[in-house]
């Protein structure tokens, strides 16, 4: 009896082996797999029935209850159905007194198996050793009940004596054993399938991603790079595999990024966003960004690294562009700010000067009448005492001289006050300048050299205002000469004109005292004067006049060489001149 049961168990093990092969081989063709499984289960039942325990002729016991119930539980309706049809068919073909019960056993076991499967899929029942034991017991108890109920009494008696105990004792654990085996096969197949899926998924991602994947061995040499890397950089597998990253990327010890990276590798640390560059096979330099994770074996031994890589060249270029644009913008903002500040301070200065000019203009004008009164009254006194013996000649002379001085100051103030607002007229520069120089009082003994080279250039300027500018410079030159040469002998003033860089230039050079380096930066400041007599508006007035003409004035001086050169610049066509010259 034991030998027969062992045969049955061996059969079950064979079933398990073939079932696992089917599960793995036809995992993707579910219907074919299930059909084949069904046939397998069916065939096993048939083999079992070929060598049964025969109680009486026509009443056989075999493992069909176990196999069919398990085919229902693990194979589902298709597998179970096919197995049941084969088993029942064979049993019918065998015939005998137990045929009806035998077929019924097949059907009921299938229903039991399917019911368990249903409960398992719904999560109501687990598949475990105890559950399977209980299941086996239930089936075979139910089967036994049927035997008693439907077999003839003498057969029941024999069954009870010879079969019932071994049936329950062996088929119940056999059910559990087969169940456990099939369950583990099912798990294996599912896990294997998941593994294959996962591998495929990884492969698909690796090949379709815009980034690439790489793996390094324990010597930090590439052992795998995904196809994307080759696409991006043109290298073939044999040019990469077995190489180190620093070998490919041209690492340099001086590069701090590389140093840190190599240190990370040495310490087997994970690293993120390490940037480096490689030269593509077409010679172009590309920037790469990589992340990596060390890989360790079960025994904690270091196996290498793996990670991802991204081509960040475009991003890098865009960043560089952006940085450059930002720098340029900043520079431009700075420049504009400086320009604006300069313009603002110029405006402030002009506003201040305008206010100052208005005030001084009014005051100066109002002073003229009292001054005239003093002058006339002094003259009246002088006339009246002329023929008497009262001697007031010196004090009266002093009064009159100082009236003249006041008048000069007032003239200077008024000139400064109305320096803005010019009324340009087209004027031939050289001939006009010659006329102005002829009117100019030059210290006796001094010489004026003229070198007028502007030819018949016609400029547009306010003759009256420009005359004032030239006269102020000539007066300064004369004073510089008289304060150096007692009788002005040896003093020279050179006046030159020329056209230079789109502008006309008038140069007035003297060999007088020169201007000290300390004083030079201040000479255009209003109310700055080195003279004992003067308000300090001469040069500021010149500058105002030149600015009003969109021109410029520049003074260079060398106190050691005793030369001062004043230059007036006028644009060949200033904005106010166009309509008039045309």
């Amino acid at each position, binding site marked *: 009896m034991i030998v027969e049961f062992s045969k049955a168990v061996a059969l079950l093990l064979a079933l398990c082996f073939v079932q696992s092969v089917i599960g793995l081989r036809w995992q993707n063709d579910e219907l074919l797999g299930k059909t084949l499984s069904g046939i397998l289960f069916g065939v096993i039942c048939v083999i079992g029935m070929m060598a049964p325990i025969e109680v009486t002729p026509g009443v056989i016991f075999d493992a069909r209850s176990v196999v069919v119930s398990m085919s229902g539980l693990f194979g589902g309706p298709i597998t179970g159905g096919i197995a049941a049809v084969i088993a029942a068919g064979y049993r019918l073909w065998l015939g005998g007194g137990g045929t009806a019960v035998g077929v019924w056993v097949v059907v009921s076991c299938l229903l039991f198996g399917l019911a368990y499967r249903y409960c398992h899929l719904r999560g109501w029942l687990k598949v475990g050793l105890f559950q399977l034991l209980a299941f086996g017991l239930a089936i075979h108890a139910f089967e036994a009940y049927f035997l008693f109920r439907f077999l003839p009494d003498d057969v029941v008696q024999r069954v009870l004596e010879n079969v019932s105990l071994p049936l329950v004792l062996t088929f119940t654990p056999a059910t559990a054993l087969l169940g456990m085996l099939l369950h583990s096969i099912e798990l294996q197949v599912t896990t294997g399938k998941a593994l294959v899926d996962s591998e495929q998924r990884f492969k698909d991602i690796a090949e379709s991603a815009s980034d690439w994947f790489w793996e390094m061995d324990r010597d930090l040499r590439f052992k795998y790079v995904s196809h994307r890397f080759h696409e991006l950089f043109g290298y073939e597998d044999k040019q990469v595999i077995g190489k180190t990253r620093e070998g490919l990327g041209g690492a340099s010890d001086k590069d701090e990024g590389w140093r840190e990276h190599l240190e990370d590798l040495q310490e087997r640390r994970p690293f993120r966003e390490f940037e480096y560059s490689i030269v593509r096979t077409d010679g172009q330099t590309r920037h790469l960004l990589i992340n990596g994770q060390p890989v360790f074996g079960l025994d904690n031994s270091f196996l290498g690294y793996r990670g991802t890589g991204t081509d960040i060249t475009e991003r890098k270029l865009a960043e560089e562009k952006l940085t450059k644009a930002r720098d340029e913008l900043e520079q431009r903002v700075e420049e504009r700010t400086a320009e604006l500040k300069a313009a603002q301070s110029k405006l402030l200065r002009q506003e201040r000067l305008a206010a100052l000019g208005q005030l001084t203009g009014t005051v100066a004008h109002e002073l*003229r009448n009292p*001054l*005239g*009164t003093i002058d*006339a*009254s002094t003259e*009246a006194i002088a006339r009246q005492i002329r023929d008497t013996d009262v001697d007031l000649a010196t004090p009266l002379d002093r009064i009159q001289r100082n009236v003249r001085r006041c*008048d000069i100051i007032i003239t200077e103030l008024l000139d400064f006050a109305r320096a803005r607002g010019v009324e340009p007229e087209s004027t031939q520069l050289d001939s006009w300048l010659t006329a102005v120089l002829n009117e100019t009082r030059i210290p006796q003994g001094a010489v004026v050299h003229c070198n007028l080279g502007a030819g018949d250039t016609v400029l547009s300027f306010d*003759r009256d205002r420009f005359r004032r500018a030239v006269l102020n410079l000539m007066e300064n030159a004369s004073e510089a000469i008289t304060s150096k040469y007692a009788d002005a002998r040896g003093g020279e003033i050179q006046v030159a004109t020329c056209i230079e860089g789109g502008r006309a230039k008038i140069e007035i050079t003297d060999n007088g005292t020169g201007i000290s380096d300390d004083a030079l930066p201040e000479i255009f400041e209003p109310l700055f004067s080195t003279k004992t007599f003067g308000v300090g508006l001469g040069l500021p007035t010149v500058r105002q006049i030149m600015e009003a003409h969109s021109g410029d004035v520049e003074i260079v001086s060398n106190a050691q060489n005793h030369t001062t050169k004043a230059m007036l610049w006028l644009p060949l066509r200033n904005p106010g001149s166009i309509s008039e010259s045309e």
Partner: protein
Amino acid sequence: MMHPLSILIVDDDPDLAASLADLLALDGHEVHVEFAGEAGISSAVQHDYDLMLVDVVLPDINGFDCVAEIRKVKPDAPIVLMTGFSANHLNQEAADHRDVEIMKKPIDLGALSRRLKAI
């Protein structure tokens, strides 16, 4: 002593007008003073002055308009305008345009004296 002339001074500054008048009187001239434009014009029209000194800036009408009004009646009236501003080209042009002399304040007394002698 030059020959006495009859002179009109029109200036709204009484001190200046008076001091000029005093000075000219010392030379024996007969000087009449007015302090406003309209008064100056009517005086100029009524009398035959050898010279009229008229300030450009007057409280009622300006010196140039005075000249125009006077010239309507006496086209050849000898008028000298006095201006407190520097003799800039605007004043100068206006004066040239109206054929009138211009002197800048404070009046150069030597120049004035020469001008009177020329009459």
